[in-house]
Protein backbone atom coordinates (compact mmCIF):
# COMPACT_ATOMS: atom_id res chain seq x y z
CA UNK A 1 0.00 0.00 0.00
CA UNK A 2 1.41 3.38 -1.03
CA UNK A 3 0.81 6.28 1.35
CA UNK A 4 1.64 9.94 0.74
CA UNK A 5 2.16 12.23 3.75
CA UNK A 6 1.59 15.88 2.89
CA UNK A 7 2.60 19.03 4.74
CA UNK A 8 3.23 22.64 3.82
CA UNK A 9 6.87 22.27 2.88
CA UNK A 10 7.33 18.55 2.51
CA UNK A 11 10.23 18.46 4.93
CA UNK A 12 9.19 18.87 8.57
CA UNK A 13 5.78 17.70 9.65
CA UNK A 14 5.35 15.24 6.78
CA UNK A 15 8.64 13.54 7.67
CA UNK A 16 7.55 13.22 11.28
CA UNK A 17 4.21 11.79 10.13
CA UNK A 18 6.01 9.36 7.80
CA UNK A 19 8.08 8.05 10.71
CA UNK A 20 4.96 7.44 12.81
CA UNK A 21 2.93 5.94 9.95
CA UNK A 22 5.73 3.48 9.25
CA UNK A 23 5.82 2.53 12.94
CA UNK A 24 2.02 2.18 13.12
CA UNK A 25 1.99 0.03 9.98
CA UNK A 26 4.74 -2.18 11.36
CA UNK A 27 2.76 -2.63 14.60
CA UNK A 28 -0.29 -3.63 12.55
CA UNK A 29 1.70 -5.94 10.31
CA UNK A 30 0.87 -3.88 7.23
CA UNK A 31 3.19 -3.55 4.27
CA UNK A 32 3.41 0.14 3.35
CA UNK A 33 5.57 2.42 1.28
CA UNK A 34 5.43 5.96 2.66
CA UNK A 35 6.59 9.06 0.80
CA UNK A 36 6.34 12.75 1.64
CA UNK A 37 5.41 15.81 -0.34
CA UNK A 38 4.58 19.49 0.03
CA UNK A 39 1.00 20.58 -0.48
CA UNK A 40 1.82 22.32 -3.75
CA UNK A 41 3.09 19.26 -5.59
CA UNK A 42 0.90 16.73 -3.78
CA UNK A 43 -1.98 17.10 -6.23
CA UNK A 44 0.19 15.77 -9.00
CA UNK A 45 1.50 12.76 -7.11
CA UNK A 46 -1.57 11.91 -4.97
CA UNK A 47 -3.15 9.58 -7.54
CA UNK A 48 -0.04 7.41 -7.63
CA UNK A 49 -0.85 6.48 -4.02
CA UNK A 50 -3.58 4.50 -2.27
CA UNK A 51 -4.01 6.95 0.59
CA UNK A 52 -3.06 10.53 1.39
CA UNK A 53 -2.54 11.69 4.97
CA UNK A 54 -2.36 15.35 5.96
CA UNK A 55 -3.42 17.85 8.62
CA UNK A 56 -6.83 19.53 8.79
CA UNK A 57 -5.43 22.88 7.70
CA UNK A 58 -4.06 21.51 4.44
CA UNK A 59 -6.83 19.13 3.40
CA UNK A 60 -8.57 21.80 1.30
CA UNK A 61 -5.46 22.09 -0.88
CA UNK A 62 -6.02 18.50 -1.98
CA UNK A 63 -9.62 18.88 -3.09
CA UNK A 64 -10.31 17.17 -6.37
CA UNK A 65 -7.82 14.36 -5.99
CA UNK A 66 -9.27 10.90 -6.58
CA UNK A 67 -7.19 9.19 -3.90
CA UNK A 68 -8.79 9.11 -0.43
CA UNK A 69 -7.51 11.91 1.81
CA UNK A 70 -7.56 11.43 5.58
CA UNK A 71 -6.66 14.09 8.12
CA UNK A 72 -4.68 13.53 11.29
CA UNK A 73 -5.33 15.76 14.34
CA UNK A 74 -2.53 14.54 16.55
CA UNK A 75 0.59 13.40 14.67
CA UNK A 76 1.94 11.94 17.90
CA UNK A 77 -1.08 9.77 18.65
CA UNK A 78 -0.25 6.29 17.38
CA UNK A 79 -3.81 5.08 18.07
CA UNK A 80 -5.29 7.76 15.82
CA UNK A 81 -2.88 6.84 13.01
CA UNK A 82 -3.52 3.11 13.47
CA UNK A 83 -7.29 3.60 13.35
CA UNK A 84 -6.96 5.34 9.99
CA UNK A 85 -4.66 2.65 8.61
CA UNK A 86 -7.00 -0.11 9.78
CA UNK A 87 -9.81 1.32 7.64
CA UNK A 88 -7.69 0.84 4.56
CA UNK A 89 -6.09 -2.48 5.46
CA UNK A 90 -7.33 -5.58 3.70
Amino acid at each position, binding site marked *: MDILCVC*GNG*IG*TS*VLLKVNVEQAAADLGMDVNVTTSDAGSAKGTANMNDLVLT*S*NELASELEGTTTPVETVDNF*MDMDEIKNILKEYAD
Partner: protein
Amino acid sequence: MADFKAFLPDSSFALDVSVEDWKGAIQRSGDALVASGFTTDAYTQQMIETVEKMGPYIVIAPGLALAHSRPSDAVLGTGLSWIRLKTPVEFGNKANDPVSLVIGLAGRDEQEHLQVMSAIAGALTNKEKTAKLAQAETPDEIRAILEG
Protein backbone atom coordinates in the same frame (compact mmCIF):
# COMPACT_ATOMS: atom_id res chain seq x y z
CA MET B 1 21.67 6.58 16.99
CA ALA B 2 21.32 10.22 16.07
CA ASP B 3 23.96 12.61 17.39
CA PHE B 4 21.82 14.80 19.61
CA LYS B 5 24.67 16.94 20.84
CA ALA B 6 25.26 18.04 17.24
CA PHE B 7 21.59 18.51 16.30
CA LEU B 8 20.51 19.97 19.66
CA PRO B 9 23.47 21.77 21.27
CA ASP B 10 23.00 23.73 24.51
CA SER B 11 22.59 26.95 22.51
CA SER B 12 19.45 25.50 20.90
CA PHE B 13 17.51 25.42 24.15
CA ALA B 14 15.37 28.02 25.89
CA LEU B 15 13.43 26.57 28.80
CA ASP B 16 10.39 28.12 30.47
CA VAL B 17 10.60 31.39 28.58
CA SER B 18 7.77 33.91 28.25
CA VAL B 19 6.54 35.10 24.86
CA GLU B 20 3.69 37.39 23.84
CA ASP B 21 2.14 35.31 21.09
CA TRP B 22 2.82 32.65 18.44
CA LYS B 23 5.05 34.98 16.44
CA GLY B 24 7.14 35.59 19.54
CA ALA B 25 7.38 31.83 20.06
CA ILE B 26 8.61 31.22 16.51
CA GLN B 27 10.95 34.21 16.76
CA ARG B 28 12.48 32.63 19.85
CA SER B 29 12.91 29.26 18.15
CA GLY B 30 14.54 31.02 15.19
CA ASP B 31 16.88 32.96 17.46
CA ALA B 32 18.02 29.68 19.00
CA LEU B 33 18.66 28.17 15.54
CA VAL B 34 20.73 31.25 14.67
CA ALA B 35 22.63 31.03 17.98
CA SER B 36 23.52 27.42 17.17
CA GLY B 37 24.76 28.34 13.70
CA PHE B 38 22.05 26.39 11.85
CA THR B 39 20.33 29.33 10.16
CA THR B 40 20.47 33.04 9.43
CA ASP B 41 17.82 35.51 10.65
CA ALA B 42 16.10 35.28 7.28
CA TYR B 43 14.99 31.73 8.12
CA THR B 44 13.15 32.95 11.24
CA GLN B 45 11.11 35.25 9.02
CA GLN B 46 10.47 32.39 6.59
CA MET B 47 9.13 30.22 9.44
CA ILE B 48 6.71 32.98 10.44
CA GLU B 49 5.64 33.46 6.80
CA THR B 50 4.97 29.72 6.49
CA VAL B 51 2.28 30.00 9.18
CA GLU B 52 0.93 33.28 7.76
CA LYS B 53 0.56 31.69 4.32
CA MET B 54 -0.49 28.14 5.15
CA GLY B 55 -2.09 28.42 8.56
CA PRO B 56 -1.14 26.85 11.89
CA TYR B 57 -0.72 23.34 10.50
CA ILE B 58 2.68 23.20 12.21
CA VAL B 59 0.86 22.55 15.51
CA ILE B 60 0.95 18.81 15.00
CA ALA B 61 0.00 17.49 18.43
CA PRO B 62 -1.61 18.93 21.57
CA GLY B 63 0.75 21.61 22.88
CA LEU B 64 3.43 20.97 20.25
CA ALA B 65 4.44 23.13 17.29
CA LEU B 66 7.12 22.12 14.80
CA ALA B 67 8.33 25.46 13.45
CA HIS B 68 10.08 25.19 10.10
CA SER B 69 10.26 26.41 6.54
CA ARG B 70 11.59 24.94 3.35
CA PRO B 71 15.31 24.48 2.67
CA SER B 72 16.88 27.73 1.45
CA ASP B 73 20.08 29.74 1.51
CA ALA B 74 19.08 30.77 5.04
CA VAL B 75 19.72 27.20 6.22
CA LEU B 76 23.41 26.76 7.03
CA GLY B 77 23.17 23.30 8.57
CA THR B 78 20.66 20.74 9.78
CA GLY B 79 19.60 21.14 13.38
CA LEU B 80 16.86 21.81 15.88
CA SER B 81 15.89 24.23 18.60
CA TRP B 82 13.80 23.42 21.67
CA ILE B 83 11.71 26.23 23.16
CA ARG B 84 9.60 25.44 26.21
CA LEU B 85 7.12 28.18 27.07
CA LYS B 86 6.32 29.26 30.60
CA THR B 87 2.78 30.14 29.59
CA PRO B 88 1.27 28.38 26.56
CA VAL B 89 0.20 30.53 23.57
CA GLU B 90 -2.50 30.11 20.92
CA PHE B 91 -1.47 29.43 17.34
CA GLY B 92 -5.04 29.25 16.04
CA ASN B 93 -5.08 25.48 15.64
CA LYS B 94 -8.47 24.18 16.82
CA ALA B 95 -7.38 20.65 17.61
CA ASN B 96 -4.08 21.25 19.36
CA ASP B 97 -3.89 24.73 20.95
CA PRO B 98 -2.45 26.06 23.20
CA VAL B 99 1.22 25.40 22.47
CA SER B 100 3.76 24.91 25.23
CA LEU B 101 6.66 23.41 23.26
CA VAL B 102 8.06 24.78 20.00
CA ILE B 103 10.60 22.64 18.18
CA GLY B 104 12.39 24.65 15.50
CA LEU B 105 13.68 22.65 12.53
CA ALA B 106 16.30 23.70 10.03
CA GLY B 107 16.73 21.03 7.38
CA ARG B 108 18.80 20.95 4.23
CA ASP B 109 17.22 17.77 2.95
CA GLU B 110 14.88 15.09 4.13
CA GLN B 111 17.42 12.32 4.61
CA GLU B 112 19.74 14.34 6.80
CA HIS B 113 17.26 14.88 9.59
CA LEU B 114 15.23 11.68 9.24
CA GLN B 115 17.19 9.93 11.97
CA VAL B 116 16.84 12.71 14.50
CA MET B 117 13.16 13.15 13.63
CA SER B 118 12.65 9.42 14.21
CA ALA B 119 14.16 9.70 17.66
CA ILE B 120 12.04 12.72 18.52
CA ALA B 121 8.88 11.04 17.23
CA GLY B 122 9.72 7.99 19.30
CA ALA B 123 9.95 10.12 22.44
CA LEU B 124 6.94 12.34 21.80
CA THR B 125 4.57 9.45 21.05
CA ASN B 126 5.44 8.07 24.47
CA LYS B 127 3.30 9.68 27.19
CA GLU B 128 5.76 8.91 29.97
CA LYS B 129 8.64 10.53 28.09
CA THR B 130 6.53 13.54 27.11
CA ALA B 131 5.73 14.14 30.78
CA LYS B 132 9.43 13.87 31.68
CA LEU B 133 10.38 16.30 28.91
CA ALA B 134 7.96 18.88 30.32
CA GLN B 135 9.64 18.61 33.72
CA ALA B 136 13.31 18.36 32.68
CA GLU B 137 15.50 21.17 33.94
CA THR B 138 18.57 21.08 31.70
CA PRO B 139 19.45 20.44 28.04
CA ASP B 140 21.42 17.37 29.16
CA GLU B 141 18.33 15.90 30.80
CA ILE B 142 16.23 16.53 27.69
CA ARG B 143 18.82 14.97 25.36
CA ALA B 144 19.06 11.95 27.65
CA ILE B 145 15.26 11.44 27.53
CA LEU B 146 15.26 11.75 23.73
CA GLU B 147 18.15 9.33 23.36
CA GLY B 148 16.82 6.81 25.88
